[in-house]
C-alpha cells in the first residue's frame, strides 16, 4: 500500500477515455480524461460530499439531543449551588427554582430547549445570569492561545523528532526519544502539571503559578501586558505539548519507516544529496499525510480547550469554564459548551474527510 506513490495514483485509469463517445482523439498522451468521465467524477464527488455532510449532520443532531439529557442525568442540585453556602429558606429555593424554570416538568423543559435551539437562544447561565454565548466568546480567545500554541509546539517537535527517529531506526536517538515521548504521553496531565509547577514556579521561581495575568498587575500598554500573558503561557503550553507530542512522534516515525526504502529515495541519494536533505526534502513530504490528518483532527480539539491543563493552571479558557460549570451544574452553559465542543470536532472530522480526498488520491480512487 505504502508503495503507491502520488504519481502512480494520479494516472487516469487505462482505457478510461476509450469507451467515451465524445473522444475527439486529441489527447494523445491520455493524460486529460474526456468530459463525460469528468462529469461522472464530479457527480461522484458530490455524492461523496453529500454522504459526509449528511453523516456529520446526523451526528450533530444526536449531539443536540443528548446535550439536553446528559447533564440532567448526572444529577446535582443547581439550586443549592446557586443559593450560596449560607442557609437558604424555602422561599429562596422556590424563587430560584422558578427563575431557572426547574419547577417545570421535564417534558416542558425539553420543549423549551428545542424551541430555543431553533431560535439559537442558548439561554442565561444559572450562576451569573449572563448570556452563555457571551461567557463562551469571552473565554474562547484564551483557549485558542493556549491550545494553539501547544499544538504548534507539539506538532513541530513531534514531526521533527519522529522524522529523525524513523530515519535512524534502532539508533539511540530513536529509542530514547520514543521512550521519553511515550512516558510523557502516559503521564497524567494533572500530575505532570503539578510537577512542572513545583519545579519551575515554586523552586526555581521562573514562571507564575496561576492564571493568565499577574496578580499585582503590570505597567499599562500592549507590550507589558502581552509579555505578561506570554510569561503565564509558558508552563501550561509546554505541559500540554509535552503530553500530546508523542502522537506526532509515533505517526511521523512509522510513516517515515514506510518511506525509508523506497526507490525514489535511492534515486535522490544517487543524485549525491546529503542524507539529511534526502530525508527533509523527499521522505518527509511523502510521509506527512497521516500527520496532516492528525493535525486537522486536533484542530477540532483546540477549541475544546484542555480541561485538565486549564484547570491546573487556572487558565481562564473554555476547559476551565466547563469544569467550573459542571460543579454547579450550570446546565445552559454546559449544553452550549458540549454542543460547541462536539460541533467543532464533527466539523474538523468532516473537513479532514473532504481535504483528504484532495490530498490523497487513493481515497478518491477507492471511494
Amino acid at each position: 500500500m505504502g508503495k503507491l506513490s502520488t504519481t502512480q495514483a494520479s494516472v487516469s485509469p487505462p482505457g478510461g477515455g476509450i469507451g467515451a463517445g465524445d473522444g475527439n482523439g486529441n489527447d494523445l498522451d491520455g493524460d486529460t480524461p474526456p468530459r463525460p468521465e469528468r462529469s461522472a467524477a464530479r457527480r461522484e464527488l458530490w455524492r461523496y460530499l453529500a454522504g459526509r455532510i449528511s453523516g456529520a449532520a446526523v451526528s450533530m443532531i444526536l449531539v443536540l439531543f443528548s446535550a439536553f439529557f446528559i447533564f440532567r442525568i448526572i444529577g446535582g442540585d443547581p439550586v443549592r449551588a446557586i443559593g450560596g453556602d449560607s442557609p437558604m429558606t424555602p422561599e429562596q429555593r422556590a424563587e430560584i427554582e422558578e427563575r431557572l424554570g426547574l419547577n417545570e416538568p421535564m417534558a416542558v423543559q425539553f420543549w423549551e430547549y428545542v424551541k430555543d435551539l431553533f431560535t439559537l437562544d442558548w439561554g442565561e447561565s444559572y450562576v451569573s445570569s449572563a448570556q452563555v454565548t457571551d461567557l463562551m466568546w469571552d473565554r474562547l480567545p484564551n483557549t485558542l492561545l493556549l491550545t494553539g500554541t501547544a499544538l504548534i509546539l507539539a506538532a513541530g517537535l513531534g514531526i521533527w523528532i519522529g522524522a529523525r527517529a524513523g530515519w535512524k531506526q534502532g539508533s539511540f536517538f530513536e529509542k530514547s526519544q520514543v521512550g521519553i515521548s511515550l512516558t510523557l504521553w502516559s503521564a497524567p496531565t494533572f500530575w505532570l502539571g503539578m510537577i512542572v509547577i513545583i519545579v519551575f514556579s515554586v523552586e526555581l521561581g521562573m514562571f507564575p503559578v496561576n492564571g493568565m495575568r499577574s496578580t499585582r498587575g503590570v505597567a499599562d500598554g500592549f507590550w507589558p501586558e502581552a509579555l505578561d500573558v506570554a510569561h503565564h503561557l509558558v508552563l501550561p503550553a509546554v505541559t500540554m505539548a509535552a503530553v500530546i507530542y508523542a502522537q506526532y512522534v509515533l505517526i511521523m516515525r512509522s510513516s517515515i519507516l514506510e518511506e525509508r526504502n523506497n526507490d525514489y529515495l535511492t534515486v535522490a541519494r544517487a543524485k549525491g544529496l546529503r542524507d539529511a536533505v534526502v530525508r527533509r526534502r523527499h521522505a518527509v513530504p511523502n510521509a506527512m499525510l497521516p500527520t496532516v490528518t492528525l493535525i486537522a483532527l486536533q484542530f477540532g480539539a483546540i477549541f475544546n480547550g484542555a480541561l485538565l491543563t486549564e484547570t491546573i493552571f487556572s487558565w481562564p479558557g473554555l476547559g476551565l469554564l466547563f469544569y467550573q460549570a459542571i460543579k454547579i451544574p450550570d446546565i445552559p452553559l454546559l449544553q452550549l459548551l458540549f454542543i460547541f465542543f462536539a460541533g467543532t470536532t464533527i466539523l474538523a472530522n468532516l473537513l479532514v474527510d473532504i481535504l483528504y480526498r484532495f490530498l490523497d488520491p487513493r481515497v478518491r480512487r477507492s471511494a
Partner: protein
Amino acid sequence: MATTPIRRWRRMTAIALAPMLAAAAVAASPAFAADDDTSDATLVVGKVGLNDIPHLNPLDSGWVVQGEINHLMYDPLIRWSQEDFTPAPGLAEDWEVSDDGLTWTYHLNPDATWSDGEPVTAQDVVFTIDLMQTNDILNSRHGGLVDQMTSVEALDDHTVEITTDEPSAIMNHLNGLMPMPEHVWSEIDDPGEYTGEPGQPTSGAFQLTEYSPGERVVLTANENYWDEPVAYDELVFQSFETTEAAVQALQQGEIDFLDNLNPEQASALESNEDVTVSIQPSRHLENISFNTGARTKDGEEFGDGHPALTDPVVRQAIHHVIDKEQLVDIILDGNGTPGVSWVAPIFSEHFWDPGDERFEVSAERGNELLDEAGYDERTDDGIRIDPESGEPLNFRLQYHSDRPAYADIVDFLVDWIGELDIAVEPTPMETVPLNEELDAGNYDISTGGWNYGPDPSEDLAYLTCDRLPDEPEPTDLTFDFYCNEEVDALWEQQLRATDSEERAEAVKELQQIVYRDSPQIILYYDHAIEAYSNDWTGFGMLPESGGTIARQQGDYGYTQAVPADMAEDAAAGDGSADDGDDTAAASDDDGSNTGLIVAIVVVALIVIGGAIWLVRRRATAHERE
C-alpha cells in the same frame, strides 16, 4: 560521517549562544526589577471558590466570599463587635427600642458619606428596605428580616424609625442591612439583576474597580472613607481552583493571604520564613448526626432510617463513648476544641458550657443506659436488639469520601460504638449523592460539617418542627428531622427577645436541650488555618482575642492589614506613613520582571533561529535542486 566545516561552525555558534542567553536572562532580573511600575500597595488575597459566586449584587448575596466582599464595600447599620460579637455601631451610631418592643429608632452617624461625597441618609435606608420588600429576588434573600417591618420612616436626614409586627431580636443585629445609595440605585432598572458595576459609590472602605467573573475582583481603597481609611491602596481577590495551587502562589509571593488551609499545607508553609501561619478558633464544626425519624409535619414517615435511632437513649449511649478530646488531639493535631452544641465558643455570649452535664466518656455508662432502656437482648453475633422493632442495632454510617478527616474519624467511631455491642457499617460516599440520601432520610448515621453564623435564629431554625417537610419529599432545611416542642418554644423566645441577655439565655437553654437529646453529636470546633506573607501585618481577627481573618461577617480582617515596612516606619516614629514609594516596596519585591526575561528569550530564540536558518540555507545551497 565527517563533520563539515560549516556544521562545526553552526554547532559552535549554538554552544556559544546558549550560555549568553542564560546570562542575559539572569542579568535581566535584577536590572529590570526597579523598573517594574506597580507603585501602589496591593494586598492580594488568594481565594478558592471565588468562581462560585454568581455576581456582586450586595443585596443578593448567598456566599461567604460574596459576604466578605460586600462588607469591604458597604457598611451595615449595625456591626458585630470585634471584641465579642455583640452589636456595635455601624452606619447607625446608636439605636433604641420602645417599651412594647415594636418600634425601633436608629440614629445614623452624621459623618457617614458615600464614596462620591454624598451623605448617607435615613432616606437611603428607607429606600433600601423598600427594595428588599418589593423586589422578588432581593426579598427572597431578606424576607425574613424585612417582611416583619410594618412601617419604615425617615424622621429626619439621620433618623430612621422602624415598626415591626412582633418584637424581634434581629433588630438589634442589623448586620445584614446594608443601605444602598438612593441617588444612584434609584436609577438602576432592576436592582435584582444588578451584578456589580465598577465605580459605584459605596459606604465602606473600598470601591469596586474590576470584576472578572471566575478570575478576580479588584477593590480600590476609598481615600475619603468616613470611618477609618485603610493603610494601602488596592485589594485583589484572585481565584484559584485548588488550595494547593494557592499555597504555591503564596510561597512564590504572587499572593499575600490565603485561608482555609489543611494541616499538611500549614506545615509546608510553616517552613517558609516569609510566611506566617495563623491557627485560630473558627465558627466551623464537625458533627455526626442521627436520622431521628424522617417524617412530614403530619407525621407521615419516609426514608429508611433505623427505628432505634428515634430513641434518645440510643443516641445518648453513643454520645457516652465518643472521646472528643482524643479526636481533637489526633485528627486535628490539637488545633480545635471538643464539641458541645451548635454555637461555637467564639460566640461567647451565646456559647453554652455543659459543666456537670457533659457526657462523661464511659462505655460502661452507655451500656447501662441501653440495658435500662430494654436493649438487653442480643443476636448470635452479640449485637443488641431493639426491643420495639426486634431489629438488631446495626447502623449504617455514611460519610463524605472527599473529606480525608472523616475516614479517620469513622475508624474511631466504629471501635467506640462497638463497645456498646452496636454494629456500625461505614460507607464512604461522594458529597452530592450522599447529601441527596440525607435529604431523603435514607441514612442511619452520617458525618457533617457546619459554619455556624453569628445570628442564632437562622441556624437554630433547622432544629425546629416547622422545618419538617409538608410532603414526604427530600429536604435540606432540617437537621436530621429533629422536632421538639421545647426547642420550638425557646427558638421563638430568642427570636422575639429584644433584650440581648434574655436572648442569650434562651439560646443557651435551647442548646442544653439539644445536647441532652443528642440528635447530633458535635465532635469538635476546628481551628481555621490561614497564612499570610510577612510583607503584611496587622490583620484583624474576629473575635479579636482569637478568631479568623477571612470569612468574617465584617471587614476587620483585611481593613486592618498594614504593609509591614509601613508598620515598621510607624513604630520607628518616622511618621511618613503615606510615603508611596515605601508602601510600594512591600508588595513589589517579588513583582514580575520575569515577563522581560521571557521577552529576551523569545527575541533571542528568533534571532538564533533566523541565524541558523540562514547558515543552513547557505550550507545546503549547492545541494539544492
